[in-house]
């Protein structure tokens, strides 16, 4: 068996592949639903209406998509430069930590200053966090996949220490959470009686901004060039190490902004369950979007629909919530495999 790239991909195939992926995923998950004693048709209808069927469902899906867009952009930018940043989860929490640190009292500012300030400071925190493994990569050729991944655990244990130790909210009766951010730092609600907050539009703005940056600026061009071929870029006189560092600051900053958005938009205070794996899901989002910044928005919405829909479906028909997790995973896996198969073929010998 051999895997080789396809010379040309027909339009029909590009169209059929995702449909087949969805079909396969539906078949696998239907089997699971039947096994759990539920009707698959009912399950799928509930899943779609649970994610899109009402104003409330839609608002929840958009709320879930907000951090996914930002962590997805973070992965897309880094992977474009072949900087394998697996540390989105850690950078997410670093953003939330910085926002908690600065947003719980030391500075009093009106919201229109406070919110940009926290986003910028949080982004700097995340960028600096990714700088460490990036410098190790550019200076000492240390593999960043390993270092960024392991940094996640260090950051999460750091947060663990903070919320169980010095930052524990004295008003929380021993519950491990940090003090809530001040009211001026809270992102305003966009839709009454829902959780949809300003962060969604900040995320959209970032997606357009990153798209423009990658397309229309010299720095963006350099990032793409270094990703395509570092040696050729160096030969052309580009400062490859500096470009990688810039990419790291941008990527880490975007992931950290997701943490700030989630903290100031949804939760209000730092806990250890702030993220159900947004940093890791961001990688999937970026891959589904083929690293295109605007595609990230679409794929983040897709992932959010699956996550919210599957969760709602499992609750509605009283089946194990693990089936929701499996459904999410199978859908994403199927789409990724289909994308792979449109670009490569498998030859049997």
């Amino acid at each position, binding site marked *: 068996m051999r895997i080789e790239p396809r010379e040309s991909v027909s339009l029909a*195939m590009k169209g059929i592949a995702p449909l*087949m992926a969805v*079909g*396969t995923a539906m*078949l*696998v998950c*239907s*089997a699971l639903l*039947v*096994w*759990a*004693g*539920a009707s698959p048709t009912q399950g799928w*209808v*509930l*899943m779609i*209406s*649970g994610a899109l*069927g*009402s*104003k*409330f*469902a839609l608002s*929840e899906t958009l709320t879930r998509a907000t951090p996914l867009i930002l962590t997805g952009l973070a992965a897309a930018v880094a992977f474009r430069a072949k900087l394998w940043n697996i540390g989105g989860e850690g950078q997410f929490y670093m953003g939330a930590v910085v926002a908690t640190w600065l947003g719980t009292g030391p500075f009093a500012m009106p919201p229109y200053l406070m919110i940009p300030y926290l986003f910028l400071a949080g982004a700097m925190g995340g960028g600096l966090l990714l700088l460490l493994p990036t410098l190790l990569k550019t200076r000492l050729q240390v593999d960043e996949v390993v270092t960024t991944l392991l940094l996640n655990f260090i950051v999460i244990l750091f947060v663990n220490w903070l919320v*169980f130790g010095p930052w524990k909210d004295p008003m929380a*009766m*021993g*519950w*491990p959470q940090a003090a809530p951010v001040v009211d001026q730092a809270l992102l305003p609600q966009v839709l009454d*009686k*829902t*959780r949809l907050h300003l962060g969604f539009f900040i995320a959209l703005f970032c997606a357009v901004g990153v798209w423009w940056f990658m397309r229309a600026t010299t720095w963006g061009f350099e990032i793409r060039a270094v990703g395509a071929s570092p040696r050729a870029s160096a030969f052309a006189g580009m400062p490859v190490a500096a470009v990688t560092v810039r990419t790291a600051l941008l990527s880490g900053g975007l992931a950290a902004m997701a943490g700030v958005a*989630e903290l100031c938009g*949804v*939760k*209000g*205070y730092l*806990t250890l*369950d*702030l993220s*159900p794996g947004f940093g890791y899901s961001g990688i999937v989002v970026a891959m589904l979007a083929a690293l295109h910044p605007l595609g990230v928005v679409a794929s983040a919405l897709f992932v959010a629909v699956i996550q*919210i829909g599957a*969760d*709602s*479906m499992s*609750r*509605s*028909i*009283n089946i*194990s*919530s693990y089936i929701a997790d499996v459904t999410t995973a199978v859908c994403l896996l199927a789409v990724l495999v289909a994308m792979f*198969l449109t670009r490569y*073929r*498998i*030859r*049997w010998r």
Partner: protein
Amino acid sequence: MKKMMKLFAASALSLALMLSLFACAEAPEEKKAEAPATQSEATTEASGEASPDASGEAAPAEEKTVKVGFVYVSPVGDAGYSYAHDLGRKAVEALDFVTTSYVESVPEGADSERVIRNMARKDFDIIFTTSFGYMDPTIKVAKEFPGVRFMHCSGFKKSENVNNYFGRIYQARYLTGLVAGAMTKSNRLGYVAAFPIPEVIRGINAFTLGVRQSNPEAEVRVVWTKTWYDPALEKDAAKSLLDAGCDVIAQHQDSPAPQEAAQEAGAYSVGYNSDMSSFAPRAHLTSAMWNWAPMYVKTVEQVRDGSWQGDQALWWSMQDGVVDIAPMGPMVPEDVKAQVLAKRDELMSGVDTVFAGPIKNQQGEIAVPEGTSMTDGEMLGMTWFVEGVVGSAE
């Protein structure tokens, strides 16, 4: 391309086959699966806002029903904390003017607010949110839905339409401690505990006071799991205590896993939430049990006749029937049983001396002087261990 198509076709075919097989295998089971589905009528998160205002003004008086929602942190089938709450829900469901629905296994993180919010917007009259971590989401949602009443279990915040409520489970814990202290041989007892918060610390202290009442030499070792429901982790924690020489395992967790670990090691165990004897019949001494039915029924009746009031902290006791201990196992000697039941009668009559002085803290200093008792406020904010507990309250 053709190869790929074949591959897909083959996998699709085999899947279809599997599917039909599953369908056959499951056919007789279907009825069973349907039973729990009926009560989820209102749980249906998906259904849009189509539901007409059921509580419409024009509805005739006798048709007026109270719609009650419950949010649980763990599965209801686990004999644990959520199971106990669900028994309370069933008692409410049995009233002819009530419809109930529940959502189980709701993590305390980002998803809990969605579940609570979703119930609030569906015209529930009252919503019970039954885990500590739901406190802030409950307060937040309640603010936006002033017409919905909320009951939050085990927290301390309240507002105009939110009450917090709990039971004096420490009274039952004390009694289980009396039993455990009389049964230990190694004078070392283990306690698998969830989070270092006052609710749990208070339980450990009451248990330890009971243990030391029966056996002043004994000590209670505490292990924190920092989770409410994680059977595998709870079992490992119990094993580590058993390995350290503990011969009675108590727990503040939602699953019976520590009971099973104790039985496997030939040790004794003390359950929590409900009578856990069926999970470890040879190990189970007794359990500290919840009985939410009287409280839930009363609350729902108050909602119906309009006497429900918000902004209250409710803390019911053994006298009110919300807490008790399970029948003691056959291995417990008769004289111990008699002693424990005598103390239980005292608590039943409303005399509560569990946290009466003198009580020493871990450093051996007098924390509650003789002649005084801890106030409710002090008990609710308890962050220190009594003498005899080995472990840190952090």
